[in-house]
């Protein structure tokens, strides 16, 4: 067993070997995650309907993220108004402030920043909670009590996040536009009529629709990735810690990548 032979491998061979292996295991994980996620989502049609658990998750993940969403939304709107005002003032077109703030928030910042906040607040807790349930054998206990943990644990969380994200992003948008109005009109003296009129004139329905579609897709991504990472985490303390970090990183990066793809479709 201990007879180890030395084989000289070139750095290039080692590099490609690693690349190949990590690509393969990445693909495997992606497939596993997709199958697990859709398997859990598919259980939505089977009885018993998990209504109560879904409401509890919507409370924990949605209502729980409300405060952070309102705060980030407010400051995003405020800083956009401030920045936008000084840029626009150089061209004498401060009246476009409403359009600038509204466009940036509704199309990009609302969905993306909102998704980031929800990942940090709700996504990490999904992974950590499911991971700890695995460490303490609570998922096995459910299994032995003839309760499918995929249906009881994963499904309500995924559905709750898919529904919570668009609602939270819409609240983020409204708060951001409102706080932009306060900074622009009350502090910097932009004409209130111009702020609203330009906002309404420049932001079209397809912008709002695009923002909404983005937030639903982000919710789906966050729910899938974070519950997968928790469910398949190594059931040890370090395993759960690592899975939580990875869940946050992977969901954030995928949100950015998917955001680019969706934006290129909608422009």
């Amino acid at each position, binding site marked *: 067993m201990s007879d180890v032979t030395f084989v000289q491998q070139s750095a290039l061979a080692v590099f490609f070997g690693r690349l190949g292996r990590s690509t393969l295991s990445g693909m495997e994980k992606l497939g596993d995650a997709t199958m697990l996620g859709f398997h859990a989502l598919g259980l939505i049609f089977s009885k018993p309907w998990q209504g*109560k658990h879904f*409401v*509890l998750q*919507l*409370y924990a993940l*949605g*209502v729980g993220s*409300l405060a952070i969403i309102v705060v980030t939304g407010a400051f995003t709107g405020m800083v956009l108004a401030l920045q936008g005002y000084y840029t626009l003032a150089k061209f004498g077109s401060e009246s476009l402030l409403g359009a600038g703030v*509204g466009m940036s928030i*509704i199309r990009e910042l609302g969905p993306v920043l909102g998704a980031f906040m929800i990942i940090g607040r709700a996504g990490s807790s999904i992974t950590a909670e499911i991971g700890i349930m695995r460490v303490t054998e609570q998922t096995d206990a459910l299994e032995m009590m003839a309760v499918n943990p995929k249906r009881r644990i994963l499904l309500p969380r995924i559905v709750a996040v898919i*529904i919570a994200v*668009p*609602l*939270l992003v*819409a*609240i983020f*948008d*409204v708060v951001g*536009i409102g706080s932009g109005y306060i900074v622009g009109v009350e502090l910097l003296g932009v004409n209130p009529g111009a702020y609203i*009129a330009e*906002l*309404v*004139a420049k*932001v*079209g*329905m397809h*912008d*709002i*629709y695009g923002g*909404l579609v983005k937030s639903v897709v982000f919710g789906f991504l966050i729910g899938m990735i974070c519950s997968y990472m928790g469910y398949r985490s190594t059931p040890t303390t370090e395993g759960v810690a690592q899975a939580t970090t990875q869940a946050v990183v992977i969901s954030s990066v995928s949100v950015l990548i998917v955001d680019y793809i969706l934006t290129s479709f909608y422009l």
Partner: protein
Amino acid sequence: MQAYRRVEMTVGVFVIVGLLAISWLAIKVGQVGGIGESGYTLIANFDDAGGVRKGSDVMMAGVAIGRINSVTLTDNDHATMVLRINEGIKITEDAFASVRTKGIIGDRYIRITQGMDDTSLEPGSEIEETESAINIEDLISKYIFSGKE
């Protein structure tokens, strides 16, 4: 159980607030068709729409009084626009609609100039008098042509 009722209530309020936010965005900011709209529509035919699009402004005396609902090609020949005019704005039967530009390179819009008639247009009727976009290239060639004479 009491605690769960409170959770349910809170979740309900949360969902309603979220839906209100979505509808505010859609109706007030996005001006989604049908729900948030008021006023009436008029029709106008132009030889050249000159870049006016759905959602462009309709202005009178420099004040926005409505927006363009649609721009379509009629008889493979000229452009037909449906204008949505805000409630309470009366436009005379001999009013004049023209395609204009805000500033030199700004957005295109429809300018409506009131006529002398006492009667105003009924909803759905047509503005007869129209002027198409001023095409700068046409202007230049006209100038060169007249210079030769």
